[in-house]
């Protein structure tokens, strides 16, 4: 009884918004687009498959934002990781390709992290710079060419495959969210991330190694972007410098709508999943509505604006 009431008390408005928004937009599309096949199992599965890479990126970003940092470079990391993996797969077996893809992501995250944590540069500026830097590297790596991924085991595991008739991208989403949620909510590391973002001085005097936390969250961001790169490469059976390029806005919006505070100390991995699915639903519905691309962008921008305004209302003022 008291447990329940304290649970309900803890479920605050900002975190509830994503659930209501999700439901509202789902119902809206379900009704208005019923004849266009929005509710078909195939379409709904498609939404989950298409959002899988964004969801994985969003999980990483929850950690960075919760620690009071931000990563703007994850889109570029996606491209560099996917390309590195695709190139490695041309001459090496699958495990090497996977390790290269993930390793490149974690390494770039560590590069960001060292600059932020130990040289004490603001993460916004560091990752703004590395976003450009690695976007350039992604372009020059293969001279703008796209690299095909022929390894069928790879495209199965990271793309079109199924396990017990569950699509692999769904499995990656579930595994990513479960692991992220566990780390975030149920480990000392997660608690230290939240404390660091909430009050770095309090964290410091409590013996938490604040710089190390900052390094790790940016490495997690890089690693998640690396995995997202593998998922793109698997699904599209090719890697290109454009992968991840357009995800920055969507992922940040998904995470904020999902109840993660921009200035740290508060967040939710489950919320980020819902936020990401919400963004995917929006894309899907707007296409089914036969809107022009320009109109889609306008409507999407407006809806994100409303969603972010509602979920951030009252948080600091």
């Amino acid at each position, binding site marked *: 009884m*008291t447990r329940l009431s304290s649970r309900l008390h*803890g479920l605050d408005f900002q975190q509830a918004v994503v659930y209501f928004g999700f439901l509202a937009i789902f119902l809206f599309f379900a009704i208005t687009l019923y004849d266009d096949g929005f509710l078909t199992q195939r379409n709904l599965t498609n939404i989950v498959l298409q959002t899988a890479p964004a969801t994985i990126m969003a999980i990483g970003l929850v950690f960075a934002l919760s620690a009071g940092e931000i990563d703007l470079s994850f889109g570029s990391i996606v491209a560099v990781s996917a390309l590195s993996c695709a190139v490695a797969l041309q001459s090496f077996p699958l495990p090497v390709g996977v390790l290269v893809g993930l390793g490149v992501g974690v390494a770039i995250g560590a590069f960001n992290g060292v600059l932020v944590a130990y040289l004490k540069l603001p993460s916004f500026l560091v990752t703004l710079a590395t976003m450009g830097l690695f976007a350039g590297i992604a372009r020059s790596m293969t001279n703008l060419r796209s690299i095909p991924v022929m390894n069928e085991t790879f495209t199965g595991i990271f793309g079109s495959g199924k396990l017990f008739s569950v699509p692999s991208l769904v499995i990656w989403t579930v595994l990513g969210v479960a692991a992220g949620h566990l780390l975030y909510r*149920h*480990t*000392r590391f997660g*608690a230290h991330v939240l404390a660091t973002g909430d009050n770095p001085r*309090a964290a410091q*005097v409590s013996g938490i190694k604040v710089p190390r936390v900052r390094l790790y969250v940016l490495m997690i961001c890089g690693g998640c972007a690396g995995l997202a790169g593998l998922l793109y490469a698997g699904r599209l059976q090719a890697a290109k410098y454009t992968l991840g390029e357009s995800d920055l806005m969507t992922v940040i919006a998904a995470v904020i709508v999902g109840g993660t505070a921009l200035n740290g*100390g508060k967040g939710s991995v489950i919320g980020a999943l819902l936020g990401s699915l919400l963004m995917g639903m929006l894309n899907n519905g707007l296409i089914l509505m036969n809107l022009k691309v320009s109109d889609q962008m306008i409507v999407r921008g407006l809806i994100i604006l409303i969603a972010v305004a509602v979920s951030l209302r009252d948080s600091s003022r």
Partner: protein
Amino acid sequence: MSGAEVLALNNIHKAFGGVVAIQDFSLNLKAGEVVALVGDNGAGKSTLIKIISGVYSPTSGDIELDGEKAGFRDASAAREMGIEVVYQDLALADQQPVYMNMFLGRELTKGPLNLLDKKRMRRETQELVDELDVRIPSASSTISNLSGGQRQGVAIARATHWASKLVLLDEPTAALGVAETARVEALIEQLKAKDLAILIISHSLDQVFRLSDRICVLRRGEQIGVRETAKTDKNEIVSMITGVA
């Protein structure tokens, strides 16, 4: 009052570059004793607290804990030795629940995966706040929903929970109202009853006379003197603080 000697500061000297912050400071603290550190702004009170808690190391002089020389590398080393500080600005993480603050940096875990034992942290926090009569809605309340007095209560409860020897209080009631100040003072009395040594910085002489066993006066980094509270009065302390006889 007759407890064992917990902390001894011998001829502590601290300079920042050429600026002398503390010169030749010596003080002993016994278990179950409250010593008040008073002095004007800039007298060196907070510097002294930071030296004892391991944030600064003294330029010369030594610190003895339980009769043994203690050289703290940093604040966590001092904490491991049983010294806790309640900071002026509280050092609480506002958006986290009370129980996570109580165990900040020292979270309890269970099982092979070392997952947080939230149940146990919540229970122990509840027991502690009940024991100390810190009136908060629950151990799961978020800090930002608490009043200033409740927050200070949480900060002091945390220090009590972890301190085995010494609690340093830096202006614990500076931001509080009358009723809340009374509650925090009652808490400090409880710490004393638990046989902890307590060093408190306060600007309120009324409070100093209510709580302390001895009063130590600092003026511009210089130790002016130590008086037994029962054998002195406000006039003497004020003139020691200001240097005006």
